């Protein structure tokens, strides 16, 4: 007999089972990633090369202000690392989804009781976490080799900021995954979207340099506050606005973006189930 307590236990048990299914997707992605022994080294090298390149580019900076080259390098390092994480979450995940379609493994996710929605959402987790780890290694490299001045007193705060960033980045990956499910392609779109955000988000230069007519774009997406906060806590860069305001933005954007992306993904699934194209590629 199941009383009220029993029902609560059943719900908890189901929630644990459901969470376990999501973690299984993360674990699968991790196993596949590490089955290629040099993949993580290759990704780390890629970002280290970018950091090295930008170090020498920053040496060209001659504003007359003391330390301008170092300040710009610190600015760029955080931008490069965050862009790496963003590219992984937005770009690699839809690519992986397309591979699943071609290999026929997506079909199995769709007919599983866990379902396609949960599976696709879970597929954003490992690329984000693995590239966060690689980014951390890259920042350590920049500090050790190029003397990036880390703010040790506040560096630990980058963890909660990164967690908030993950919640903000995931919806973009889910939206692009929806495009893969609906139209089977997202490669070109992904490149445009990432380039657009790297332009208006302040990844490589301060958004204050943008023309006034498009500067508002830097206020209506989560990348600008993410970069501001991370630069502040990691390298002591001044904030553009109050820290609390940036944190609030990072907390509010996912409240809008996550349900929106889940709705779009659900619509893509329903549309392709109706059309019969869900397993096509």
């Amino acid at each position, binding site marked *: 007999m199941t009383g009220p307590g029993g029902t609560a236990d059943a719900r908890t*048990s*189901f929630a*644990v*089972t*459901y969470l*376990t*299914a999501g*973690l*299984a*997707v993360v*674990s*699968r992605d991790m*196993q*596949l990633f590490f*089955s*290629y022994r040099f993949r993580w080294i290759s990704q780390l090298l890629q970002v280290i090369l970018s950091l090295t390149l930008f170090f020498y580019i920053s040496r060209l900076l001659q504003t007359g202000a003391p330390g301008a080259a170092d300040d710009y390098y610190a600015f760029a390092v955080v931008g490069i690392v965050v862009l790496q994480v963003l590219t992984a979450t937005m770009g690699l995940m839809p690519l992986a989804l397309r591979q699943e379609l071609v*290999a*026929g*493994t997506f*079909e*199995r*996710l*769709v*007919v*599983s*009781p*866990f*379902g396609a929605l949960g*599976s696709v959402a879970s597929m954003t987790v490992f690329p984000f976490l693995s590239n966060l780890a690689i980014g951390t290694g890259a920042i350590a490299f920049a500090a050790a080799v190029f003397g990036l001045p880390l703010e040790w007193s506040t560096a630990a705060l980058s963890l909660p900021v990164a967690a908030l960033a993950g919640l903000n980045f995931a919806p973009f990956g889910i939206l692009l995954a929806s495009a893969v499910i609906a139209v089977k392609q997202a490669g070109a779109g992904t490149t445009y979207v990432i380039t657009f955000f790297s332009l208006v988000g302040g990844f490589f230069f301060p958004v204050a340099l943008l023309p006034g007519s498009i500067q508002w774009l830097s206020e209506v997406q989560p990348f600008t506050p993410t970069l501001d906060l991370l630069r502040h806590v990691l390298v002591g860069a001044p904030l553009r606005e109050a820290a609390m305001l940036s944190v609030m933005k990072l907390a509010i954007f996912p409240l809008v973006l996550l349900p929106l992306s889940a709705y779009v993904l659900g619509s893509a699934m329903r549309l392709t*189930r*109706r*059309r*019969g194209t*869900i*397993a096509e590629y």
Partner: protein
Amino acid sequence: MLSPASTRSTTSTASAFPGAPPTLCMQGVVKRWPRQSKPVLDGVDLDARAGTVTWIGGRNGAGKTTLLRIAAGLIAADEGTTAVVGLDPERELRDYQRHVGFLSGGNGGLYARLTVASHLDFWSRLALVPRSKRRESVEASLHQFGLEELAGRRVDRMSMGQRQRLRLAMTFLHQPTLVLLDEPRNSLDDDGLAVLLEALRILTVRGGTAIWCSPSGEDLGFEPDARMLVQAGRLTPA
């Protein structure tokens, strides 16, 4: 166009569990593909009863795979209804999927660089098998499908027949009520076929139901409870 339900003959299987409602009930199912003049399925009715195995044959492209995909909840019909143990795939998809095991055609659906054990563990979690039963389910599947010695082997280092055994093991692992098999003999040797037939025997003894689709003329290696054909979009007794 659909005929009125009263004038259509429902294709039904005799049950080993008399009185039990049909495990799979499809009524008036119609599916059209874009840019094709005729529907691939044009008013399919099917009642598959508990404890039975139904073979569905037909020519290449007749619509067998489409029929299975609709029954699996993978794609939706344009018209008509589908229910598994009374569950609607539109409104109750998660519960619906818990009752269904689906083996797609071909040899896809596996991760080349994951091991057999990893696949079964992964699937047991996606199938929402409770934690207390997960390990037991995986071990039972390894044993039932003769995969124990291959548990640690990566899929890309296995033969096609071994891969098919793994795909079958994943199909049966969560003890579905309805098993949908699209050309399950694919690459199986005699031992593999025997393993599959034993899995079907166990399924039907516990009241489960199976639909086996393959092209007409294939030697099944057993006598199903019912034989049907997809012809001109309709399902008729063979």
